[in-house]
């Protein structure tokens, strides 16, 4: 954690990747740091005993935003997703065991409650009605998610309801409506006032239709205005982003390439640097700000590449926040990479870093001319002083393995410092 970052309140969201209904329970569990099963059980139990849980759940469902909105990938990946060049997220239905257990638990509690206290006339209609409302809300979530993925920016009132109109969305709407109607019917039968119930239903429907006719056009216009505004804002932001980035880096590189057209190595170097830059911008979510080991190594590789005619491949496994204690490791790595770039003569250096709970290891390898390690002690001050001695002074180890004609590998090892971030 950096101390300079402005305070940002942690917002609870609904977790749409792990949801049975609205993702409220899993989102809440994540927010509160509780096991999700506890939260689910709490909701089920309190819903069954008097319905508080259901009301609470419904309230949170309404007010909590989904996490989809906050899920930002790198721009290149998002663009690829929007164009359908990446596979979309697949919903998984493998883990229904806890769901069934929870449902059984809920029904059990309801039945026990009923046999103990007797049933009110309102009970089952309310339960069925809630089921219907839940289904329809669930569909609204699906439709909302699709709207975010949709780049046309238009809000079609029908699509706001059914999304892309798969059979599942219609089925959910239909089943939801049917359940609500059933709730009315059950209520009517229970109270024995079929006529009264029918009249209430008809009056209610007429009221809804009347309202729709009266304010429908207004709502529709409002929605389309909103959609237009949103689309325009998104478009202009995207244009600004892309233009700024292209101007900053790509155009400059192109200008440099034109100037150096006669000089093949320089052109290759410029193209390589630009490629690295664009790749980072498009596909990598982490920045190269140098606060973490992986980003620092990438930055270091970019610098060496910029200065010399060489390609430095960086692969990292695991990562950690950099502290002052790792500075010698980075300096030794830089020295090793620079040596390889200078002396190997192959134009390619592989850097591999692995962070394990015990130690950070960095391997710098080239397949160049190599040398006999026995002869370096005296005359190659760079290796002795700035790599081996430096690492050993700071509690690490360094090893240089080289065979003439086959290349060189420098192995740097630094124990992980105890303080956990």
């Amino acid at each position: 954690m950096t101390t300079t970052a402005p305070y940002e309140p942690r917002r609870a969201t609904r977790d749409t990747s792990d949801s049975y209904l609205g993702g409220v329970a899993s989102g809440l569990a994540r927010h509160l740091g509780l096991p999700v099963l506890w939260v689910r059980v709490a909701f089920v139990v309190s819903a069954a005993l008097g319905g508080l849980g259901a009301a609470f759940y419904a309230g949170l469902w309404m007010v909590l935003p989904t996490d989809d909105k906050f899920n930002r990938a790198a721009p290149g990946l998002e663009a690829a997703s929007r164009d359908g060049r990446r596979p979309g997220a697949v919903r998984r239905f493998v883990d229904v065991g806890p769901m069934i257990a929870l449902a059984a638990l809920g029904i059990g509690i309801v039945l026990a409650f009923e046999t103990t206290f007797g049933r009110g006339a309102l009970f089952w209609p309310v339960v069925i009605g809630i089921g219907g409302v839940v289904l329809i809300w669930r569909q609204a979530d699906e439709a909302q998610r699709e709207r975010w993925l949709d780049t046309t920016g238009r809000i079609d009132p029908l699509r706001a309801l059914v999304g892309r109109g798969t059979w599942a969305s219609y089925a959910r709407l239909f089943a939801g409506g049917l359940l609500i109607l059933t709730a009315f019917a059950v209520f009517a039968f229970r109270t024995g006032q079929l006529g009264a119930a029918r009249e209430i239903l008809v009056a209610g429907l007429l009221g809804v239709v009347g309202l729709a006719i009266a304010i429908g056009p207004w709502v529709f216009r409002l929605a389309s205005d909103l959609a237009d505004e949103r689309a325009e804002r998104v478009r202009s932001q995207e244009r600004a982003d892309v233009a700024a980035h292209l101007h900053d880096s790509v155009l400059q590189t192109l200008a440099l390439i034109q100037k150096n057209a006669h000089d093949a190595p320089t052109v290759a170097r410029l193209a390589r640097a630009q490629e690295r830059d664009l790749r980072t911008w498009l596909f990598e979510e982490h920045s190269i700000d140098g606060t973490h080991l992986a980003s620092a190594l990438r930055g270091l590789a970019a610098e060496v590449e910029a200065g010399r005619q060489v390609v430095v491949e960086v692969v990292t496994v695991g990562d950690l926040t950099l502290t002052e204690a790792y500075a010698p490791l980075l300096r030794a790595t830089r020295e090793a990479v620079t040596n390889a770039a200078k002396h190997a003569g192959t134009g390619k250096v592989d850097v591999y870093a692995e962070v394990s709970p015990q130690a950070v290891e960095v391997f710098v390898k080239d397949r160049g001319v190599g040398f006999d390690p026995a002869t370096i002690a005296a005359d190659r001050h760079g290796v002795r002083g700035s790599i081996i001695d430096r690492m050993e002074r700071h509690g690490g180890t360094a090893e240089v393995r080289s065979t003439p004609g086959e290349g060189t590998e420098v192995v740097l090892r630094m124990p992980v410092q105890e303080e956990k971030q």
Partner: protein
Amino acid sequence: MTTVVIVDDHAMFRAGVRAELGTDVDVVAEAEDVDTAIAAISAHRPEVVLLDVHLPGGGGVEVMRRLGPTDTKFLALSVSDAAEDVIGTIRGGARGYVTKTITGPELVDAIRRVADGDAVFSPRLAGFVLDAFAGSIEVAAVDEDLDRLTEREREVMRLIARGYAYKEVAKELFISIKTVETHMSSVLRKLQLSSRHELTRWASDRRLL
């Protein structure tokens, strides 16, 4: 000669690869999206398909999913270094992954390996694999054979990630190249079949599952 179909949505890139492969392999067709790829692969039955990870119509994974079981081998080729896309393509059935900056001779070599049924791991893919299986050594559940890499497989992956060629890996570990290839295939199989908790969570964090 190995028959190859190149699938990529950039015509310029396809032309570039074709030129680089030269006469070492037989490029029988090109395709630019999922539908044309399926048509071309069904028509020509190539030994190897060079498959772009990002492809109009749902990505390279979609091509493999819709073709179903086939004798054709897939080698993923991508400019995107996004771990989730690369691992997703491997789990979808590709036998290897190389980046588009690979040199011509290296690409020809990778195609040959894939055609022979071997796996092709670039240093970057080896890094992703180690990341995906990270911490598996400490996991107590030993019975799930698929859910962890053996110590030997990890060593091989680490050497690949460090930039060692197969030959150098074999020499370093005092094993034959054949054994190295066996380890690679077994890692590939684990990557594709494993349902290990960490890998699943890793994948679902990245919305692969």
